[in-house]
């Protein structure tokens, strides 16, 4: 199951809530303001590193670019809208609003 997160983790608890329910192996995709979680060297980098031990983590590249995020936490993959569709081909979707 693909989990999408669209909220900044600094203002909303959505990402931390999602992590509590995540099953091993399920991919996480940050979109919209959610991509701020993936910026290298912020307060959430260590949580993302923990998540990546069991789950692949992606961020939507056009959303990273729009926000000027040039460096993401190491190991976070980056996909464009086509890659987003690719993930949806492989998984059912759980959109954490």
């Amino acid at each position, binding site marked *: *199951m693909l989990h999408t997160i669209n909220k900044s983790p600094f203002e909303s*608890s959505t990402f931390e*809530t999602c992590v*509590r*329910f*995540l*099953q091993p192996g*399920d991919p996480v995709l940050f979109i919209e303001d959610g991509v701020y979680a993936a910026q290298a060297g912020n307060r959430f980098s260590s949580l993302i590193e923990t998540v990546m031990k069991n789950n692949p983590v992606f961020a939507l590249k056009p959303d990273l670019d729009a926000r000027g995020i040039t460096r993401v936490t190491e190991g976070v993959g980056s996909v464009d809208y086509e890659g987003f569709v690719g993930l949806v081909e492989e998984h*059912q*979707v*759980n*959109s*954490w*609003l």
Partner: protein
Amino acid sequence: MSEDTDIRKIMHVMRRAPHGSIYSYEGLEMILIMAAYEQDLSVVFIGDGVYALKKDQDTTGIGIKGFSKTFMALDGYDVEKLFVDRASLEERGLTEDDLVVDVEVMEASEIGRLMTEQDVVIHH
């Protein structure tokens, strides 16, 4: 595309508090309609979503129609799978006795496992 005989597993995840926004109320309206379609429905209450079930809600003062009692009607629509996240209750200082309906209190890991079995998950 699935055949007509397929029964879909559809999970509604209640995430927002009632009254401050309409998501919880319009989410419940969606559940009531879907209940007529004989799919495999479940409703899960996570985070502020648990507040929708809080007893003693009296919305007279804010001038908005209350709807907590409508959750009691779900049983009559054969929506019997109501799950509540234990940690969400606890950090809010709530227990099962504070809720208007009988629910099954579950660990996040169990709810997470249920989520992965779904065909459709909709957050409200």
